[in-house]
C-alpha cells in the first residue's frame, strides 16, 4: 500500500471527480436506473395496474409475438429503417460530393440543406401528411395534385397508405430532414482527406474517378459508420414523425407507438416495457459494436 491517501494526491483527482459526480449520479439514476426498472417491469407479470410485479421468466418476450399488432410493427420498423438509412446516406453523400466539387455559394447551399434538421418531426409531419395524401385525381391534394398538374400522373401513388410499401414512403420526410446532417458529416470527412494524398495519386496518373474510388472513399469509412449508427438509432426509435403523419393506426404501426399504446391506452405496463426493452436491444445491437470498434481504433492510433 504505497499509494496512501494524502491531501496532496486528493487535490489531483478530487476536483475532477466532484465536477463530474452530479452527472454520474444523474445518468446513473435517470438512464441506467430507469433501464433497470424498465427491464424489471418487462420480466414481470404486471399486465394491468394492480397485479403485483412478480417474475414471469421473460414470458412476455415470447408472448409479444402473438400480439396481432406486433409482427407488422417490426416489419414496418425494418422497412422504414432500410429505406431511411440507405436514402439519407446516399443523398447526404451525394450532396457532400457536390459541395466538395465546389459549387458557387457553398455556404448558402449548406445552410439550405441543413435547415430541415432545425424543424421538429411533429411540425414537418403536419405538412407531409398533406403532401402525401393518396386521394384519387378528382380530389387530389399535395404531391399527387402536383404530379397531375404537370402531367406526371403515373407518379401519383398511395404514399404511406400503400398496403405493402407504405413505410418506404413514410421514410421520405425523414430522409428529407436528416440528409443535410449526413451531408455535413461527409463534407467534414471529404475535407479531412489531405490534398497531398490526392495530388500524389494524380501525379501517379490516377483519373479523378480513381482518386475517389481508391483514395478518398476508403477514408470516409469512419464517417459512414458514425452516420449509420446515428441514423439507425433515430430510425428504430421513430415516434413523433409517424404520430404527426398517421397517428396510432395499424398501417404505420412501429414499436415506439406500440409502447405508447400498450402503456397509456391499453394500461399494460409489462407489455409496454417489453417492447421498450426490445427497442433498447435493437439499438444496443447497433451501438455496442460501434463503441467497441471506436475504442479499439483509438487504442491503435495511440500505440
Amino acid at each position, binding site marked *: 500500500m504505497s499509494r496512501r491517501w494524502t491531501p496532496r494526491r486528493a487535490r489531483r483527482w478530487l476536483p475532477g471527480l466532484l465536477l463530474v459526480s452530479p452527472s454520474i449520479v444523474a445518468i446513473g439514476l435517470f438512464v441506467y436506473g430507469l433501464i433497470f426498472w424498465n427491464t424489471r417491469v418487462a420480466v414481470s407479470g404486471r399486465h394491468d395496474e*394492480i397485479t403485483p410485479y412478480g417474475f414471469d421468466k421473460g414470458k412476455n418476450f415470447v408472448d409479444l409475438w402473438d400480439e396481432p399488432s406486433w409482427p407488422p410493427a417490426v416489419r414496418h420498423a425494418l422497412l422504414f429503417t432500410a429505406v431511411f438509412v440507405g436514402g439519407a446516406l446516399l443523398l447526404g453523400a451525394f450532396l457532400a460530393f457536390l459541395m466538395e466539387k465546389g459549387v458557387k455559394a457553398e455556404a448558402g447551399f449548406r445552410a439550405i440543406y441543413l435547415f430541415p434538421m432545425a424543424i421538429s418531426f411533429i411540425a414537418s409531419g403536419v405538412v407531409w401528411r398533406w403532401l402525401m395524401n393518396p386521394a384519387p385525381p378528382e380530389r387530389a391534394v399535395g404531391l399527387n395534385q402536383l404530379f397531375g398538374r404537370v402531367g406526371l400522373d403515373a407518379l401519383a401513388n398511395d404514399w404511406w397508405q400503400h398496403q405493402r410499401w407504405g413505410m418506404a414512403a413514410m421514410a421520405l420526410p425523414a430522409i428529407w430532414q436528416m440528409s443535410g446532417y449526413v451531408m455535413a458529416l461527409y463534407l467534414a470527412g471529404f475535407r479531412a482527406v489531405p490534398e497531398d494524398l490526392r495530388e500524389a495519386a494524380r501525379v501517379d496518373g490516377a483519373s479523378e474517378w480513381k482518386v475517389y474510388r481508391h483514395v478518398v472513399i476508403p477514408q470516409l469509412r469512419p464517417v459512414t459508420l458514425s452516420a449509420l449508427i446515428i441514423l439507425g438509432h433515430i430510425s428504430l426509435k421513430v415516434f413523433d414523425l409517424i404520430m404527426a403523419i398517421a397517428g396510432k393506426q395499424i398501417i404505420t404501426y412501429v414499436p415506439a407507438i406500440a409502447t405508447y399504446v400498450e402503456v397509456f391506452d*391499453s394500461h399494460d405496463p409489462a407489455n409496454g416495457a417489453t417492447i421498450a426493452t426490445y427497442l433498447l436491444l435493437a439499438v444496443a445491437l447497433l451501438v455496442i459494436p460501434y463503441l467497441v470498434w471506436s475504442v479499439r481504433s483509438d487504442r491503435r492510433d495511440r500505440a
Partner: protein
Amino acid sequence: MRGRWKALAAATLAGVLAVSGCGGGDDGGGDASQVEVFSWWTGPGEADGLAAMQAHFEKANPGTKFVNAAVAGGSGTQAKAVLASRLQNRKPPDSFQGHAGAELLDYIKAGQIEPLDSFYEDNNLKQAYPQQLLEQISYQGKIYSVPVNIHRSNMLWYNPKILEDAGIDGPPKTIAEFITALKAVDDKTDKVPLSLGIQWTADHLLENVLLGDLGTDAYNALWKPGADWSSPAVTKALTDFAEIMKYTTQESASSEWQDAAKAVVDGKAAFNIMGDWVYGYYVNPGPNGLGKKLDTDFKYAAAPGTDGTYMWLSDSFTLPRNAPHRGGALAWLKVAGSKEGQDLFNPKKGSIPARKDADKSLYKGYLEYALNEWTSPDTKLAGSFWHGVYASNKWHTDIDTAVGLFLQNKDVAKLQQSLVAAAKNSAQ
C-alpha cells in the same frame, strides 16, 4: 448576508405554516378548502361550459377554491397519460373526468376511485338518471361516476342534395337499405358515398353497423361475460361492414373526423356516420365551426337500423380514493350531478344532460331532438364501446388493432376471429 438568509428561511417557514393551517376547514366530509378538477375540456364550447359550472360552483361553495386542472390535446389522450402518472404517484386530483362505463374499469379494479352509491342516495340521483343508464354504467352493482352529459354515437349525417341526385328518397332505415343507397350514390353521381376518417372512425362505424344489424339487445349482450362473437349474426354484420367499407375513400387514413364530416356539407360526400359532436361543428360560427344550415346543407337521422335506440356515451366525474380535498370533491360532484350544473354546461358544450329532468327550453335544433329521444320512455339505450361505455381499455385496444388489420387485409373471417379472441381475453 447571513441575516438575510435567516429572514428568508423564517418567511418561508411562516408561509408553509400558513398554507397548512388553511387545511383546517374539515366538516366530516373531508377537506373542502379547495377542489382540483381534472378534465380535458379545453376546446371551444366545452371550456365555456366548464367555466359556467365553475361559476355556479363558486357561488354555491364560497369557501372552496376551484382549481381547473384541464389538460389539452388529443381529445383526452394527453390528459389520460398525465392522469395515469398522477394516480401512479398517488397524487390524484380531487375529481377527474372519464367516460362513464368500462373505461373506468382499470381505475376501479386498481382501487383508485371510490363507489358513489351512498352519494347517489344522499342526493336522490338514482331517480334523476334513466334506469338503463345506471344499469349500463354499474360494475358489480356499484356506480363509480357521476355522468354530466350525453352524446349520441349512432348518428347519420347526409347531404340532401346528393341523395336527390342519386334518386334516394330519405335516409336509409336499415343496413340493407344503406348499402343500396351507397351503391346508388356510387353509380349515379361522382360523389363519395360514405366519408370516413382515420382508423378510429372505422371503429366508430363498426359499432354502428353492429348495432344496426344485430339490434339493441343482441348488441348489448355482446359485451357481457361469455358473449358469443362467433355467431352467424355477427358474421353477417361484419360482412355488411366490409361491404360498406368498399364505399369509403382511399384517403381516409389521412383525414380526421372533422375532414370526413366536412366532406358532407361541402357537397363532396353523401353520408357520414359519426357522433353528434358533428352537429356543433356544422352549425357553430367560425373559426371552430363551419356555419352551415340544417336541412339545406345537411340533414341527420339515426344511423341505419338503429332508430329508437340511443347509443350513448357520457363524460362523467369520479371520486379518487385519497382525494386530497374530499369535501371539495363531493361538493363538485354535487354540482356535476345537479340539474342546474348540467343545464349550464350542456347547451354550451353541445350535448344534452344525462338527467331526465333538464329544462327543455334550453335545447334547440338538434339538441331538442336528442333530448326528446333521450327522455322518451320508448327509447332503448345501448352503450358505445368505442367511446368507453362497454369495453375496458385493453379490449378497446384489441378491437382497434383487429379493425386496423382488417383495413389492410379486408378479411372478414380474420376480423371475426380477432374479435372473438379479444372478447375472450377481456372477460370483464
